[in-house]
């Protein structure tokens, strides 16, 4: 990753190493997979310990505040909450592997059921925002690089700077103020429908949440895309393409777009944590009943099993996202040789 990457603040990415022998894809994949598994195990232990430290047992939530200590102890004993932490962790992981994400005593439902009810809605919101953000940022960044320092470039750069520094809830509030209250075009609340198909069809309710998440993401992607495109434009093969008389349109389409878009693969993988956080804020702001809102409600109700499962799911998603991005990059970029 380049040092001016806006997402990682110049953090070098542990990507595929260049050089070495070709055809060692399998070795690389296996090694990358093992590292990812180690990280997933590590982060799950860490998060479990941290939440266990904060919320040792849900006994109080179940038995009520007036429960006597003896009752609490008995409940803990009966439900395995007096085991050593590492045993509890083992039981939890064992449950996860068998599709049991824990039980929410506050909601009186299994966490899995709560998740199933809401996952599609969150996937839709995040997915469509991500796709839109990439679809806008790539042409925008290329346009800015080609028309460098033009009025259009300066306007887009300024907008990106402002959006990049803006908390997503403030952007959402501005959009609500302008597009739902001052000019009542869209609804200020996300779709409340139980059916994902109704949600997808409900543009009136979904435009503002999607726009909020998309714009925030475009801000960082387009900055990145602009500098990546400028690097590619300075390459010799662009000069050669122009020198041999290739029309500018084809220079851009054949040479620039492909090469400048490659780093986007890594960027998308790296920006998953930000997307999850944005999802949490956006769903809370627009009262859109997805996973983010579920997590927000679990914080208010101190629903520890939901917090744990959601945070763990987020961590796993981050690791898997990076893994997929790395693999996708090695597939998309034949120049990468794996050691």
């Amino acid at each position, binding site marked *: 990753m380049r*040092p*001016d990457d806006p997402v*990682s*603040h*110049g*953090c*070098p990415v*542990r990507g595929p190493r260049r050089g070495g022998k070709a055809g060692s894809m399998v070795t690389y994949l296996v090694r990358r997979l093992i*590292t990812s598994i*180690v*990280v*997933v195990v*590590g*982060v799950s232990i*860490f*998060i479990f310990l*941290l*939440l266990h430290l*904060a*919320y040792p047992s849900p006994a109080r939530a179940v038995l009520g505040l007036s429960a006597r200590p003896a009752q609490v102890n008995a409940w803990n004993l009966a439900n395995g909450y007096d085991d050593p932490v590492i045993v509890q962790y083992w039981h939890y992981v064992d449950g996860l592997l068998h599709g049991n994400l824990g039980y929410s005593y506050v909601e009186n439902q299994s966490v899995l059921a709560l998740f199933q009810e809401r996952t599609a809605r969150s996937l839709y919101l995040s997915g469509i925002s991500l796709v839109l953000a990439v679809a806008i940022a790539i042409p925008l960044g290329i346009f800015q690089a080609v028309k460098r320092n033009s009025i259009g470039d300066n306007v887009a750069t300024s907008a990106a*700077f*402002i959006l*990049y*520094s*803006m*908390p997503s*809830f*403030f952007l959402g*509030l*501005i959009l*609500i*103020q302008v597009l739902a*209250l001052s000019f009542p075009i869209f609804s*200020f609340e996300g779709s409340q429908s139980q059916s994902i198909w109704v949600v997808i069809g409900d543009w009136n309710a979904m435009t503002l949440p999607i726009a909020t998440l998309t714009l925030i993401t475009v801000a960082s992607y387009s900055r990145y895309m602009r500098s990546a495109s400028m690097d590619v434009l300075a390459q010799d093969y662009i000069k050669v393409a122009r020198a041999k008389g290739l029309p500018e349109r084809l220079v851009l389409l054949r040479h620039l777009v492909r090469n400048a878009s490659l780093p986007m693969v890594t960027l998308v993988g790296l920006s998953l*944590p930000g997307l*999850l*956080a944005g999802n*949490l*804020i956006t769903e*809370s702001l627009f009262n859109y009943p997805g996973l983010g809102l579920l*997590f*927000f409600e679990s*914080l*208010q109700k*101190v629903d520890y099993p939901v*917090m744990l499962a*959601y*945070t763990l799911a*987020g*961590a796993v998603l*981050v*690791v898997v996202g990076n893994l997929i991005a790395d693999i996708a990059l090695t597939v998309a970029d034949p120049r990468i040789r794996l050691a």
Partner: protein
Amino acid sequence: MAMNSLPPLDVQRAPEGGEIGAVQSGWRLALREFRNNRLAVVGVGILVFFVLFSFIGPLIYHTDQLDTNPIIANQAPTGAHLLGTDGEGFDELGRMMKGGQAALEIGFFAAAVAIVIGALWGAVSGLVGGIVDSVMMRVVDVFLAVPFLFVVLILAVKFGATVLSLSLVIGFFAWQVPARLVRGEVLTLRERDFVLAARTAGSGNWRLISRHLLPNALGVVIVNVTFQVADAILAVSYVGFLGFGLHFPAVDWGDQLANGSNFLEDGYWWQIFPVGACIVLTVMGLNFIGDALRDAMDVRLRRR
């Protein structure tokens, strides 16, 4: 350049053992580059403004931020309350100043925590190398996978948010990037002659890190600090907006904005947009400074 060629006069001021001449002129060059960057000047201006606004402002513009006053609740801006009042009758402008104090304090303190942990972690990892390095870097990977905002929220709910607790929690989950940056620097620095010379002269690992490696890795750290502060201020605003921020009588911008957003439909713009602008401007100023510092440091590094 080896140690014995150091001009004796500069030994007190510059990191012992480095390329004193080159480093100094490099820093000076970086400073000039920074000053010539228009956005950098704007960024510094914004930051200075908000420091004065938050810490000196309340001395000039006196407001009561302790007693609610329902009689004057939700007033539009007037001469007595320049930016109106909120739903509990607190003066908005005075509240913004108080929120600014919290934001800046948490931002800088969290950044300091993150930088100290990260710089030490990265330096030790890079210097010792081998299996220790591998293990320490896997720990960094693990921390990178922790969903930052979720964990900060969970801990804020459990332990209550104060300036100190939020700073520590945010800093404790934000040190991975500086750790990687410093490790990268140390990996190249440790092969240099002056480190060998210092080792030969009997410096232990700790002395090497504190006197030789960290001062020379300062460039990447400084660039990262400003981004850390900006990220921490944003994180605090998220925590506050979701309602898990600082408790009364402390004020944070996110919480203030969330309170105002309850009156969005009533058109009480003064409760929402000025404080939102505070967050955006502060973070943007810091990002300007960070970008400019990075460009300036590039100039300095090119001199090496």
